[in-house]
């Protein structure tokens, strides 16, 4: 296939996409995203609401888009949290596209309308707008921290060693310095890509590698204290990385993290949290580790919750058919682990998009043979980027006379900032669609409390014995096993409601049950004195509620 036809086909398939020349800036700024969310929520005003949970240091709103018909706070909810890492702009785009698809579908399809009637989706499209905005600034560098000033290297000087755009291309890329003490060498498959030299295999380092800039404070480190900030995904309480860069002074120290956590603790109805972020626990589930799960400070999934992670991972892989996901473990202070270990909810994470495997070209007209994937992720990425005509992904290395290295050969170049996490937006629609399908399937599996086998039987002396089974008809537990330990997760609650002249003789008015697994039941029984009608209500903020009445005998 020649290039022209290929380009035409791409253009045809994604006719809505902007021209390729501007594709590299096609992610939305805070203002654009705000306008898009406002438009969306007013267009679907009966199905969605746009609110804010707080403001950032620069006064940007932390938007929350709620999907669901009426009374959203009283329905079991799924949280989708995106933009937790600042550089992952694609997660924000995915979250919003998914919301758009869901709302569109709700107008057309009964099943989706029903879904939004029984469940609530809390979507946080961008939890760190101050960080992601750097993508749109005049000088583009990969900023993962918010705009709360912090002394990254804790030396008493703030922002004393920022980046400098030495080659004046508006991008902060890398500098490589030819030096025999360097740890890096050009990759064999592509000499533009710098990889670590493996000394144990007899390889020799040839280059020192730094980010682009000057050592302003002459401490032998380049750009170690730029502007910023605390990273949302490093500021949570579980395994908090004290004194590490981007962690902040203490857990939940930031406007963004505090606003998010405060909302979450108030939202008793949150059943599960899905983070669109760096870790991936959906393509491959976290394994159960008895040692970790039974420590005083529990740091592994409890057994039943690990089984559910397994179940959800299968669902994810089956519905999305997304393959070749790189392994990405949870990290210290992240929101994913907080949501499970400290917030007590089921919690999962996926980057949503990752570099697809470059498939070998089917035609070998130009004499090209199939290329085996490289062991170096960056090599695979640039192959993919070039095959998909990602414009401006790489800045070719160019010589630069660097004042910090007067007699050495310095070149500036490398990947453009953000490029590895911002695929052309045109590629995201199908990914969003697959995740929408996954969430629809997931929501159908969610727990559902039913009262069954309710009976009233006459006992001597004007007493009636009432018995009922409270059954979880869903395919997932009513809440997590760890939730049973947490005061922030409401247990399944069964209440007997009596009239004034009725009297409870035996059994507690309110009965609580730990998590009910799929198909599990909880039997309740009371002895009541009196006449008339009584009501039994089973309820859980995460599994819904049902009431049934019965006559006293």
């Amino acid at each position, binding site marked *: 296939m020649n290039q022209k036809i290929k380009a035409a086909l791409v253009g045809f398939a994604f006719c809505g996409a902007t021209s390729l020349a501007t594709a590299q800036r096609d992610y939305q700024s805070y203002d654009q995203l705000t306008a898009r969310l406002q438009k969306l929520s007013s267009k679907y005003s009966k199905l969605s609401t746009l609110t804010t949970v707080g403001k950032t240091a620069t006064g940007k709103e932390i938007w929350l888009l709620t999907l669901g018909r009426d009374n959203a706070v009283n329905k079991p909810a799924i949280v989708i949290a995106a933009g937790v890492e600042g550089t992952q702009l694609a997660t924000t785009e995915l979250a919003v596209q998914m919301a758009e698809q869901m709302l569109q579908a709700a107008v057309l399809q009964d099943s989706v309308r029903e879904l939004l009637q029984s469940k609530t989706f809390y979507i946080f499209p961008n939890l760190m707008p101050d960080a992601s905005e750097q993508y749109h600034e005049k000088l583009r560098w990969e900023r993962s921290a918010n705009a709360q000033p912090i002394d990254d*290297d804790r030396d008493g000087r703030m922002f004393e060693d920022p980046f400098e755009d030495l080659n004046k291309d508006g991008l902060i890329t890398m500098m490589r310095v030819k030096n025999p003490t360097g740890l890096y060498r050009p990759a064999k498959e592509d000499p533009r890509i710098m990889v670590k030299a493996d000394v144990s295999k007899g390889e020799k380092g040839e280059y020192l590698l730094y980010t682009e800039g000057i050592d302003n404070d002459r401490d032998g480190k380049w750009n170690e204290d730029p502007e910023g900030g605390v990273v949302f995904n490093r500021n949570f309480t579980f395994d908090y990385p004290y004194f590490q860069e981007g962690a902040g*002074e203490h857990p939940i120290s930031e406007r963004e993290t505090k606003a998010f956590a405060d909302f979450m603790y108030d939202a008793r109805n949150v059943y599960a949290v899905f983070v669109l972020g760096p870790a991936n626990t959906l393509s491959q589930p976290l394994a159960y580790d008895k040692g970790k799960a039974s420590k005083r400070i529990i740091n592994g999934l409890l057994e039943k919750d690990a089984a559910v992670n397994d179940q959800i991972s299968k669902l994810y892989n089956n519905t999305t058919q997304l393959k070749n996901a790189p392994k990405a473990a949870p990290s210290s202070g992240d929101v994913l682990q907080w949501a499970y270990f400290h917030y007590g909810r089921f919690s999962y994470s996926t980057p949503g998009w990752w570099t697809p495997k470059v498939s070998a070209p089917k035609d070998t007209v130009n004499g090209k043979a199939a290329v085996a994937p490289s062991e170096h992720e960056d090599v695979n990425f640039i192959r993919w980027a070039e095959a998909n005509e990602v414009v401006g992904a790489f800045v070719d290395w160019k010589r630069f006379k660097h004042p910090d290295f007067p007699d050495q050969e310095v070149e500036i170049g490398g990947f453009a900032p953000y490029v590895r996490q911002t695929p052309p937006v045109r590629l995201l629609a199908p990914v969003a669609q697959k995740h929408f399908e996954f969430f629809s399937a997931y929501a159908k599996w969610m727990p559902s409390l039913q009262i069954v086998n309710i009976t009233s039987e006459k006992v001597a002396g004007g007493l009636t014995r009432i018995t009922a089974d409270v059954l979880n008809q869903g395919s997932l537990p009513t809440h997590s096993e760890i939730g049973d330990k947490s005061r922030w997760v409401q247990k399944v609650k069964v209440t007997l409601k009596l009239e004034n002249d009725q009297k409870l003789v035996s059994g507690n008015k309110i009965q609580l049950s730990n998590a009910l697994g799929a198909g599990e039941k909880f039997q309740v029984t009371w002895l009541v004195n009196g006449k008339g009608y009584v009501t039994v209500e089973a309820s859980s903020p995460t599994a819904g509620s049902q009431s049934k009445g019965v006559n006293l005998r």
Partner: protein
Amino acid sequence: MKKRFFPVALVASLLAFCGVQTSRAQTPEQVFRAAGTPHNPKVSVSWNRYYDYAGITQICQQLAKAHPDLVKLETIGDSYEGRRLWVLTVSDFKTGDPLRKPAMYIDGNIHSNEIQGAEFALYTVWYLAENFQDNRFIKELLQQKTFYIIPTINPDARDNFMHKPNNAHSPRSGMMPLDDDGDGLVDEDQPDDLNKDGHITFMRRKSPNGRYILDPQNPLRLIPAKPDQPGTYELLGYEGLDNDGDGKVNEDPIGYYDPNRDWGWNWQPDYIQRGAFKYPFSLPENRAVKDFVLRHPNIAGAQSYHNNGGMILRGPGAEEDQNTYNRDDNQVYDLLGKYAEQVIPGYTYMVVYRDLYSAFGGELDWFHGARGIFTFTNELMSPYLQFDRKTASGQEREAEQYDFNKMLLFNDAFVEWEPFDHPTYGMVEIGGFKKNYPRAHPGFLLEEDAHRNMAFTVYQTYQLPQLEIREVQTRKLSNGLTEVTATIANNRIIPTHSSQDLKYKIERPDYVSLKDQSIVAGLVMENADLNLGKEQKQNPSRLEIPNIPGMGYVKVRWIVLANKPDLTIEVDSRKGGVVTQKF
């Protein structure tokens, strides 16, 4: 004449009630000074009783008004129910910015039932201010150091403790309503003051099924029946009803969360550390204190008063945190702790996780772990203060309380048993110790113990870094260069950076600057005699010193292109203060 009466008139104009007296039975001329006590204070406070939030506020305001050059009153934020949290800055304001002097932080009453910390803290302010003129030691201390004192960091529940029915242990929490029993309802089954006496005491019932009998020595007291002896009473717990009809009595009281499990060091959630709230500093009072501490990097020592048991506690709070307290820091703690044992008889210097219990997210852990501040918690009111006996078993201790109540308080601390017709239990008796005993000091012990504990905090403050430019030497080199070597000493036992601070670079380095304009090079010396040093290439006129150790020194050296360099030297340390001297 006029001068003397002015402060009295001023005080009078402020007064509405409480222990600050408007009129005096004695004139200063009639008073003979008892050693160590201000005999003619501008603000008169009775230190044998307790003050509620309004009372504390008034004393704070009066102290600030009466001593404008020594005491400043500010607010650090609001409590959950909207009360101002007061901080008093105590220092000689005429001898420099309090923020640039090494500082001691003191608070009290984080647990709302542990009330006397507030009075102890206030006593400290009062004592320092009222003694400033007459006592050279205090005068010098306030010239060199600063105190930041927050009498109560839990004012909401302090007032609840005092004005609503409670027992000696309730509330320990703050006033935020929470669901404790998981039924979705908040604070729906609190204790009930059935006999309307303002105290939550105990319920007991005469019953052949009970395993208790009356103590023949003291009929107010129940003791367990011997294994082979029939009982006559059963204990039914604290005064209360099953308000929500769930078959449990008093199971969802005020709170419950523990403000001292809410701090941002090794914080753990409620299922691991009971009492933890949502996340570190999720309580507004603690968040305000945390912000205050971050805004005052000169704080180098701290004390957080609790009760009870007569302990001088240091961290770590949890066994998992042992490595946070290393040898160098522990040496400082040990020196201070031993001093405290001497000035407060009956108190024991202890480590929380090892000698008391294991707790995550405590205030002292955050102060030390996250801020590198040498911090103690004194558990006020020692059993030793009751009778002069140090070694009593738990059983004896309990009996001792009844004896003490009878012999020294003439039964004032006890609600005598009275019958009550209880809707669930039938005829019961209600009685027991009042909420002001035995955790809170009886009045006559309050001032003494406040003084002793204050003396310890004063000593800790005295031992905060005291920097001195001890010596400056010059030596001519060739080519018109001069070598300047300065010795900077710390004359106290607390270093400018604890080793926890050094390890994680919590506070910036100390700066030592030479004001001469022609500095060619600057070095921080490892050994000045052997000429071993490390050159600081960037900005050599202001050398950065990681730490000036306790009772130690550092040497710095400059090479200057001048025959007669300007030998003005400035030492600027966040926790060690600022010293400037021209040689």
